């Protein structure tokens, strides 16, 4: 197990290396002077010099990369071109809204999607099954921001059950924190529910045809026992995998949802950085989110052994 863990961690290094190289080269390979690209058309020579100095653009490219990657490995994500603040300091206060929405979405999605998928597979071919599959195609097709605005219109403007937009920190009390989290979470959960329910259903359909399920039924175990203890546990691995691979979708969703609901999270920080052409911040956000994605998938790989004792490394 320890050997496998080491191998998996080592395998993640080239992936992150490619991500780092890509974001580094993206600015350098874009046609034109990188400093002029970042500063915009009306930049003064002083501004261009400042950007060149800040990003080390006067050095040969391999030295630029070496300096940049060494700083990165020491936890220095660089400095914003707009606010001149260290990017790490800018990210810190933005984490709470993003993590809250992402975590709440994962929890809500699993709670809704897994039962939906199990029921759809159990009642395979009935209207319940068709309803779940229809919901899943809808979830993939209706853009997050359209869902967000429909929910705002119904629940915040027409019914006035929850606030329209904004975020309150948990330190301001659970009530205000929770009521502002409901709509963004429901919005973002739509696509994740679609993904997980579809996979749960497909995986359960595979498993429900297995001999051990027939044996369990023959032993007279109740339907709930068959579904939950015998089938779902065996169907869990692909479901967990899709939760991991869908994490990139979740991160993209967080960026859009934060813009719809005006949440001051890392997604909003990224969009603001794009609008201001603050490339060091964009670069840092890509590295951060890709790192989270790789780490989540690493953890999920390790979780397989806990879920399915047949998997041994």
């Amino acid at each position, binding site marked *: 197990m320890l050997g496998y863990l080491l191998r998996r961690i080592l395998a993640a290094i*080239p*992936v*992150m*290396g*490619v*991500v780092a*190289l*890509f*974001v580094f080269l*993206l*600015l350098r390979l*874009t*046609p034109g002077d990188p400093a002029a*690209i970042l500063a915009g058309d009306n930049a003064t020579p002083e501004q261009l010099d400042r950007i060149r100095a800040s990003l080390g653009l006067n050095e040969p490219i391999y030295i630029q990369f070496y300096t940049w990657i060494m700083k990165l490995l020491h936890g220095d994500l660089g400095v914003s071109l707009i606010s001149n603040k260290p990017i790490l300091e800018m990210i810190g206060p933005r984490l709470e809204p993003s993590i809250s929405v992402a975590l709440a979405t994962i929890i809500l999605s699993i709670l809704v999607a897994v039962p939906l998928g199990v029921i759809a*597979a159990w009642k*395979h*071919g009935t209207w319940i*099954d068709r309803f779940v599959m229809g919901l899943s*195609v*809808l979830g*993939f*097709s*209706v*853009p*997050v*921001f*359209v869902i967000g*605005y*429909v929910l*705002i*219109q119904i629940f915040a*403007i027409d019914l006035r059950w929850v606030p*329209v937009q904004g975020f309150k920190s948990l330190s301001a009390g659970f009530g205000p924190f929770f009521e502002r989290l409901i709509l963004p979470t429901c919005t973002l959960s739509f696509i994740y529910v679609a993904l997980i329910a579809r996979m749960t*259903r*497909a995986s359960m*359909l*595979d498993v429900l045809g297995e001999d051990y399920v027939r044996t369990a039924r023959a032993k007279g175990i109740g339907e709930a026992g068959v579904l939950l203890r015998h089938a779902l546990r065996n169907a869990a691995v692909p479901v967990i995998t899709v939760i991991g691979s869908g994490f*990139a*979708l979740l*991160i*993209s969703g967080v*960026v*859009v949802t934060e*813009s719809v609901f005006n949440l001051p999270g890392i997604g909003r920080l*990224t*969009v603001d950085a*794009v*609008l201001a*052409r603050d*490339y060091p911040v*964009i*670069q840092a*956000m*890509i590295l951060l*989110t*890709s790192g989270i*994605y*790789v780490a989540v998938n690493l953890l999920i790989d390790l979780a397989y052994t806990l879920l399915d004792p047949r998997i041994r490394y």
Partner: protein
Amino acid sequence: MAIDTLPESSIPVTRPFRLRLGFLTATPIIAVATICLALIILMAIFAPLLAPHDPLLLAPAQRLKPASAQFLLGTDAFGRDLMSRIIYGARISLVIGLGAAVCSIVIGLLIGLVSGFFRWVDAVMMRVMDGLMAIPSILLAIAVVSLSGASIWTVMVAITIPEIPRVARLVRSVVLTAREEPYVEAAISVGSSLPKIMWRHLMPNTIAPLIVQGTYVCASAILTEAILSFLGAGISPETPTWGNIMAEGRAYFQVKPQLIFWPGLLLSIAILSVNLIGDAARDALDPRMKQREGK
């Protein structure tokens, strides 16, 4: 007869799949999706004939007007006719969707064919693909657009890059299986040229999965374009795209939610139709998948 004396023409070429268009009407829902998509395509092609007004014409006196006989869906904050802008918006969505699907398939096919065939290329290319897949596609796309400036071409490139690894991986997996087949070994034995082996014997195996993947890429590209425009990182705001109309509508959402709902509805119908047609194509081309999905 020794295999090395076999005339090359006697080696069976993999029979390309045959996709009959009947799958487009396989079920009533898919037929409706096909009709919806056809209508949206016609709307895009004949936009100049269908649009009642110039989608770019500013008329400050007419700003945020409700639906009326003159403006069937009302006007936006600059007095432009919402319906005309939505009709023209279909053009950008479809061009980007189709363009990104074709580009990512062509590039992904090349990478996948080479990776699947040459082990040493495979090791490097797949690490690069893993790296690209680790970057959330929206972030990758907005980074590309923010550096290269927003135009329809940069947006298309920005949307294509994150899709390439998915196509390349799919093609590679098909090639890895196909290259072990006797007909490929036979083609290698008789000294067929490498491009010929790839083009005539390996590539036909990838067409069916690529058609299915192409529809999903198309749907995803339409969605990503709308998201980029919505976030303000897409094609310049005066160009009528569904994402741009919605982005402008954000500020007036409480006054005129139609600015978001109408383009949002069409966008959803377009993506839903393409996804459903993709599912139908997959079922038609790969019955095993259909069985697995329990249909």
